[in-house]
């Protein structure tokens, strides 16, 4: 029965897994031979000892697939998911992320830093211990192993041990990195220790979930809901506490000349140096007092659900945030005036401490606001119980966690990160944040209207971006074809014109083509995108300046009487401008999605015939989607042109259109947070991979991520509820009787 043996599913599966292992071995590491030795890469992959690692991976996958039914019951137990997430997070921090930016630590990765640190005298002994003898790795293995064992045999005592180990391990890793940074005394933006702390705390949480589990099946969503519902705003208070304590006790507030000064150090540094009194008092005691006061008020407001206390906390937080900014400004201004190394202007050469303090105050104020506004809604509900059914929010948009105020909790966390993380990032990441992540997030929001909400596949979306950019170039006089003098505008004033022109372009493209469906529309839009690019390239009538493009587009500026602000070269400035644009667009589009137009789009997407029969003018509604998406893209174009200063047709190639579609699909079609997250992740990933994989392999790894995503989470990163329901096909599974009804009614075919 030889054939029977080879056709057995297990043998096939094993062969598949081994093939996968070999392919993986070939993918990772050197993939090219040299001129003298073409087989080098192959031999390295197949014959070197590391092939054993890949074979083990293949065998593990085989075992997992074969014994899946036996494994699944364990996977459903409480704590499994956080355990996996925590383990992977720590693993990532110790393999991929940098633990030091300093040149003296090799490539700055964990292993390199550890081998250097273990042999360095004078490093803090605990840190030295952590880095020596693979202790960091052993700690991870033991913590993870204990957590896994506790889940397997449901032993609570073991889980408690793992939880304690997790907390200890996290703090140890974080302080060890801090010790290395202090020892080296150079500015440091590496994130390894912080991410390891988060991973270890997740592991601890997993162990805690195991220790406190009541049932055999985990319900993470219900647990998070309970957590959020227990005291609205309390998660924010806890977050504020953690971030604030790190900021005020441990983090760097000022780092001139390679020193790392914590808050107490800065006080002595600036003593008697002419710092404004308020700022000095902040450094001396006011900062601490404000933090403790805000923290206590916010905590009390959350615990007691007290509206007035909530407002007080919000106010205190806002004042404290403002004072922190003033102090920062004063410190760096003073340093810049005194010619301290690297401090060339306001907010330069700071550590992360001051920004973390800002984030903490922001989050605490947010907690106050959550409590304050929550109370108002409850009261309304009690006042008019009779109208309750009509007033109840009942659409398919109220997604995610049902606890009151939970969406605000997430909102404040995201906003705090967006506002106060970028200043502490390196110049490289600030640039990526603006010219890649931010712009593509804006584009994805626009395309989501067309692809996600109206269900029209647009492969030429970048054309509108180009139109917006060229409109800006024209209106600012950067093209050979000059505007009349009264139309010579600054870039921000060009926004309404760009919106108007892109609206018109969207309608012009849409009106003749929207009777096409699906693939046909996609091809037409693809052609439109190319027409715009090639027209710009061919320079008819010397309007677009051909392949040379437009240059000298001025940076944005605001001059409104006394208010004057000019954007320059600093990416941070553009980031905040972009953030304002994104927030405005998101606010407007959220309302749009919940309006009758949003529902009409959903209706068309699901059943165009029924939508028409219900009285929806499908052509008009689709045109609106096209125009609104196009105008968003136009806004992004204005921003891009005025930020970068020069544009040419090569900025608007087909590839960019396809990337934006990929971002929206990856993030979750039809979901606003999804499209944004998709764009952010997929623009961040290539830049992150620059450090991790050979340059030629980068696109392959991104492709692998997209592929896996579409296999295991086809509705996207943050799926839209409406879309998820469509994918699941609820109407088919709901009722057995449906099958008894004829499918064809002849409606799809026209006479």
């Amino acid at each position, binding site marked *: 029965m030889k054939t029977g043996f080879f056709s057995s599913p297990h043998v096939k599966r094993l062969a598949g897994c081994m093939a996968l292992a070999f392919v993986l071995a070939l993918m990772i590491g050197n993939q090219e031979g040299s001129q003298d030795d073409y087989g080098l890469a192959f031999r390295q992959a197949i014959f070197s000892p590391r092939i054993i690692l890949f074979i083990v991976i293949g065998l593990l996958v085989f075992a997992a697939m074969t014994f899946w039914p036996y494994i699944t019951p364990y996977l459903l137990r409480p704590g499994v998911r956080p355990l996996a997430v925590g383990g992977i997070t720590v693993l990532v921090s110790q393999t991929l992320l940098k633990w030091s930016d300093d040149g003296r630590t090799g490539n700055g990765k964990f292993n390199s830093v550890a081998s250097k640190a273990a042999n360095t005298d004078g490093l803090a002994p605990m840190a030295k211990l952590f880095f020596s003898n693979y202790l960091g790795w052993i700690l991870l293995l033991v913590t993870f192993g204990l957590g896994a064992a506790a889940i397997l045999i449901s032993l609570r005592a073991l889980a408690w041990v793992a939880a304690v180990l997790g907390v200890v391990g996290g703090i140890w890793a974080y302080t060890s990195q801090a010790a290395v940074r202090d020892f080296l005394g150079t500015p440091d933006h590496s994130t390894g220790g912080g991410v390891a702390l988060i991973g270890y705390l997740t592991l601890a949480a997993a162990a805690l979930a195991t220790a406190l589990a009541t049932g055999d099946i985990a319900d993470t969503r219900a647990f998070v809901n309970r957590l959020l519902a227990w005291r609205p705003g309390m998660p924010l208070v806890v977050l504020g506490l953690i971030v604030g304590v790190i900021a005020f006790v441990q983090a760097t507030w000022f780092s001139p000349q390679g020193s790392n000064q914590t808050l107490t150090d800065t006080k002595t540094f600036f003593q008697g140096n002419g710092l404004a009194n308020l700022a000095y008092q902040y450094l001396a005691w006011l900062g601490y007092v404000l933090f403790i006061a805000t923290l206590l008020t916010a905590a009390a407001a959350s615990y007691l659900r007290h509206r007035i206390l909530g407002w007080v906390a919000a106010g205190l937080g806002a004042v404290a945030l403002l004072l922190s900014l003033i102090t920062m400004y004063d410190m760096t201004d003073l340093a810049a005036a005194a010619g301290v190394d690297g401090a060339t202007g306001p907010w330069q050469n700071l550590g992360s401490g001051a920004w973390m303090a800002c984030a903490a105050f922001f989050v605490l104020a947010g907690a106050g606001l959550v409590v304050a506004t929550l109370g108002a809604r409850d009261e309304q509900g009690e006042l008019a119980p009779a109208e309750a059914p009509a007033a109840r929010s009942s*659409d398919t948009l109220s997604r995610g966690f049902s606890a009151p105020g939970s969406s605000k909790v997430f909102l404040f966390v995201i906003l705090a990160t967006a506002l106060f993380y970028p200043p502490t990032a390196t110049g490289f990441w600030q640039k990526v944040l603006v010219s890649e992540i931010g712009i593509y997030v804006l584009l994805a929001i626009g395309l989501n209207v067309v692809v996600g909400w109206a269900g029209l596949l647009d492969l030429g979306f970048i054309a509108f971006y180009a139109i917006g950019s060229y409109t800006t170039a024209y209106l600012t006089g950067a093209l050979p074809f000059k505007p009349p003098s009264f139309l010579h505008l600054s870039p921000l004033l060009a926004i309404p014109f760009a919106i108007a022109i892109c609206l018109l372009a969207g309608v012009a493209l849409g009106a003749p083509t929207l009777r096409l469906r699906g693939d046909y529309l996609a091809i037409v839009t693809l052609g439109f995108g190319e027409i715009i690019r090639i027209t710009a390239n061919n320079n008819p009538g010397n309007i677009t300046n051909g392949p040379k493009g437009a240059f000298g587009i001025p940076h944005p500026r605001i001059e409104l009487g006394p208010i004057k602000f000019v954007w320059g070269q600093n990416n941070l400035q553009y980031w905040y401008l972009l953030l304002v644009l994104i927030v405005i667009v998101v606010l407007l589009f959220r*309302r749009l999605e919940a309006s009758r137009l949003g529902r009409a789009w*959903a209706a068309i997407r699901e059943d165009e015939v029924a939508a028409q029969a*219900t009285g929806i003018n499908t052509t008009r509604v689709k045109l609106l989607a096209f125009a609104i998406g196009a105008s968003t893209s136009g806004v992004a174009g204005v921003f891009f042109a005025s930020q970068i200063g020069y544009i040419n047709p090569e900025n608007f190639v087909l590839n960019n259109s396809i990337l934006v579609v990929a971002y929206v699909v990856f993030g979750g079609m039809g979901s606003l947070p999804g499209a944004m997250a998709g764009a952010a992740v997929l623009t961040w990933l290539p830049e992150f991979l620059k450090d991790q994989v050979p340059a030629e392999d980068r696109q392959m790894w991104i492709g692998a991520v997209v592929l896996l995503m579409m296999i295991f989470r086809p509705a996207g990163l943050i799926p839209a509820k409406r879309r998820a329901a469509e994918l699941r096909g*609820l*109407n088919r599974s709901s009722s057995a009787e449906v099958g*008894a009804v004829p499918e064809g009614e*002849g*409606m799809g075919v026209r006479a």
Partner: protein
Amino acid sequence: MTAVHDVANPGAAPQTRDVVYDIDHVTLRFGGVTSLNDVSLKMYRGEILAVIGPNGAGKTSLFNSLTGVYHPQEGNINLAARVGDSPVSVLGQKTHVINHLGVARTFQNIRLFPALTALENVKVGVETRQKAGPIAAMLGMPWQRREERESTARAYELLSFVGLTERANELAGSLAYGEQRRLEIARALGTDPGVILLDEPAAGTNPAEKRDLADLITRINSEDGISVLLIEHDMKLVMSIAHRLVVLNFGEKIAEGTPEEIQKDPVVIAAYLGTTDEDDAAPVQADGTATADGIPPARGAHRSANEGDANEGEQS
């Protein structure tokens, strides 16, 4: 005459001689196949008019011609859906325009928006009559918010009218079959029609649901004064609620009249039973005592609605 009949009569629908739909010598062809052949028919305001006929008789083709999905090659269709409207030709009009003229319809195979909630489905219908545009929605203008509140309130009203208040926040696709039928009617009613076209509303429903449905249709007709054009295979249901019937066969109108007249019409009997023998007992049992489905399934001409797989694909 029977209990079921009494449901309709006290409803006292205000039937008039006011013409809603004037179908004048309409012929619809698909290539060489004639789907409707010289059909003339008048529908009067306030009546429940049922269109019956064996499979492939052209009933759904007629519906699609009336709502602008198909465009007949010959003849004319005039519509005056609401009281006081002057007749307008619907030929060549788009479906959504005809809907705005006051014609709402349901589909033989249910066509809801399954990923929207029941409430949202009805709101989609109600909102096609609203004015606020996208800019008002984005800026949250007061009139847009008022319209939003109004449409929600009206949608709840309609849901309670069809008895789905409890399911308002369920996804439409997850509702039971009979509920989906009723939700489709609620969505159609949301567009504030003067005439509603129901395409086999009882297909695939159980006897209890059929009774509810008959009651619902008479309420739509009597309480809201909406004219109802009905395609239905369930003869018991049709005979109990319809004021008049039209019988189609092979694309031609073969009979028109009250239920009693139709039950006795030899041409109709021949069409359904494939025989000219007038000595046969009247196959259409209005009181439903002989067979549950009214017409006995005879010689392949007709399958009862309860089997539900009546193939209305026709020649399209």
